[in-house]
């Protein structure tokens, strides 16, 4: 597919109302467009865009694609054991399979709006985007037409993961993947979002929003696997709200795209809440991953642990900016934040900006960021067993990510992520003497 001649840029095209959508939703779209026009584009002076490559934010040629006629997506095979899977090509539903326990609502957003309007409304884009991309979240709000709405009622356990594939098809197009997951009291659910494309998606964008709500005692696991083609770009804004005694685990993998930015906010909103924020990024060529995180402890006895691991080849680049905020009343908080970079090339660049703001007593907090190259004694050990230098470096680099992946504590999910990582390592051609 080639670019649509004379298509109107996403920056200028007012989306308008969506046929069949409830009134509140169309009002929300309208408000989103208004907000988008009001907010400035990120600039050099925006602290939240420090070190960012602003030149990547070029939407002049980017437009909404026509409704896809595709009969399927070409994404990953996915998981063998799953509860449901949905596939979208440019936000058009192309695949649907569901084997969920009774009471679980797992529907494409357009259908959820028709059938469960009030429930969607109660949770839809309720949290403000505060980590820099408010303008793009507004653009998403104005344009979003589809996505997934997943609601797990009280006490229901969804054993196997729900998979959602978002496929980008075509040049210079933009899609607005949306995932809203509400895990009710003491429920359990795992959702995997795949963001993929082939090389035809040159100049294309995914501007994704995913909101996660873990109500009291719930266990919510969310994975975003970003493996877009090397000429596509992505912004993903992730808001997680963790209730009393609930556990949220979010994992982001970056292997694809020219540039991807993820903003992840986790709000520990109930006492005893627990949040794991995990990420693995493997950059090569000129790929760039820009990650901004916020661990907001708003309740006592809350726990958060962030571990981001980046492996950087060639001239790839990362920006990590992480803030831990502990509110005045959030006593007995444990908050940890670690970002580690493995520099596989002298030309790669890692920027880290950890931040800490503690307003309560009785708090255990730590943050740390390191960048190092491969350990020579490990390399020697592997080579002394006959493993070639190239293979030895690859094994060690792959092993570096495992610390974060193993925190998923679920063999099937770990295998899935490792398979994406392994594919990425196969694409890496290092010249090693």
């Amino acid at each position: 597919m080639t670019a649509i001649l004379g298509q109107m840029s996403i920056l200028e095209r007012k989306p308008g109302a969506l046929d069949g959508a409830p009134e509140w939703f169309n009002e929300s779209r309208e408000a989103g467009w208004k907000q988008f026009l009001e907010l400035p584009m990120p600039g050099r002076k925006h602290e939240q865009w420090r070190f960012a490559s602003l030149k990547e934010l070029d939407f002049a040629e980017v437009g909404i694609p026509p409704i896809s006629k595709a009969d399927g997506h070409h994404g990953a095979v996915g998981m063998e054991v799953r509860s449901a899977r949905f596939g979208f090509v440019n936000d058009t539903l192309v695949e649907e399979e569901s084997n969920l326990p009774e009471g679980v609502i797992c529907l494409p957003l357009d259908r959820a709006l028709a059938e469960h309007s009030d429930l969607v409304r109660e949770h839809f884009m309720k949290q403000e985007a505060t980590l820099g991309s408010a303008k793009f979240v507004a653009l998403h709000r104005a344009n979003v037409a589809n996505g997934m709405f997943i609601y797990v009622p009280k006490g229901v356990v969804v054993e196997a993961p729900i998979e959602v594939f978002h496929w980008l098809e075509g040049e210079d197009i933009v899609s607005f993947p949306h995932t809203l997951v509400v895990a009710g009291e003491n429920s359990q659910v795992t959702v995997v979002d795949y963001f993929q494309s082939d090389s035809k998606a040159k100049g294309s964008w995914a501007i994704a929003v995913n909101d996660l709500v873990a109500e009291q005692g719930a266990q919510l696991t969310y994975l975003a696997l970003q493996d877009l083609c090397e000429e596509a770009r992505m912004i993903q804004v992730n808001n997680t709200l963790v209730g009393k005694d609930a556990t949220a685990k979010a994992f982001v993998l970056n292997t694809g795209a020219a540039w991807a930015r993820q903003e992840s906010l986790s709000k520990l909103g109930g006492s005893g809440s627990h949040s794991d924020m995990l990420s693995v990024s493997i950059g090569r060529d000129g790929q760039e991953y820009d990650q901004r995180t916020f661990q907001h402890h708003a309740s006592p006895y809350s726990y958060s642990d962030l571990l981001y691991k980046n492996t950087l080849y060639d001239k790839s680049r990362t920006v990590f900016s992480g803030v831990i905020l502990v509110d005045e009343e959030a006593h007995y908080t444990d908050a940890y934040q670690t970002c580690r970079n493995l520099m596989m090339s002298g030309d790669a660049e890692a920027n880290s900006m950890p931040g800490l703001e503690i307003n309560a007593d009785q708090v255990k907090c730590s943050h740390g960021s390191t960048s190092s190259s491969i350990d020579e004694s490990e390399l020697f050990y592997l080579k002394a067993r006959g493993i070639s230098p190239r293979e030895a470096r690859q094994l060690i680099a792959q092993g570096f990510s495992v610390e974060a992946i193993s925190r998923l504590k679920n063999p099937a999910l770990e295998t899935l992520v490792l398979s994406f990582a392994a594919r990425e390592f196969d694409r890496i051609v290092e010249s090693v003497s």
Partner: protein
Amino acid sequence: MSLIVKDLHAGIEGNEIIKGLSLEVPKGEVHAIMGPNGSGKSTLSKVISGHTDYAVKSGSVTLDGEDLLEMEIDERSRAGLFLAFQYPAEVPGVSNANFIRAALQSRLPKGKELDAVAYYKDLYSKMDALGIDRKFTARSVNEGFSGGEKKRNEVLQMMMLDPKYCVMDETDSGLDIDALKVVAQGVNSMRSPDRGFLIITHYQRLLDYIEPDHVHVLAGGKIVRSGGKELALELEARGYDFLKEETLTTA
């Protein structure tokens, strides 16, 4: 067919540590090198295995006639050399099973895949023989292993890779007596007319369990005395100090 070190001069950062060392380990024999701290024992193992921190000034090391010093580290291993490390590295995130598998795979011709079923069968039987719990296959290489577990893991790799010559660098250090016995048993089970051993050790203790054919004493970067297994006992009884006296009297 031997591992031959000839008039080797080598060191690190300009300091010559090995000063004219010559040694021949024929296949089928077990040679022990004993020596006090700082005599050059570990340097010898590093130089033979090709550690790039160490520079060879002159001399040669050959494996069945092949020039080892011309080979890269990994090539030496594939040529049949095995170094059991004194301090094996920990490799986070790389499972022990994948590590050994990669080492075996590297010995196969390009395009040929290791038979995974046969590999695990072989691995498990050797782990059983060494008393290594099977959960160690999934654990990261040496990460969080005790001293004894690390050394057993070295012997496991040695058994799996089936080398022609084994250089064991202070394998007994940090081992309790039970672990020492297991390690020695592993080594003894590998003794064969097709394999040579060079066992580097500070103490005679290991040689109670692995009986050497020859014992060499390393001091000041060269072999100062060679003899049979009784030499080890003599060293144990008299300490390394008598070497100094002897050197003095013969000087």
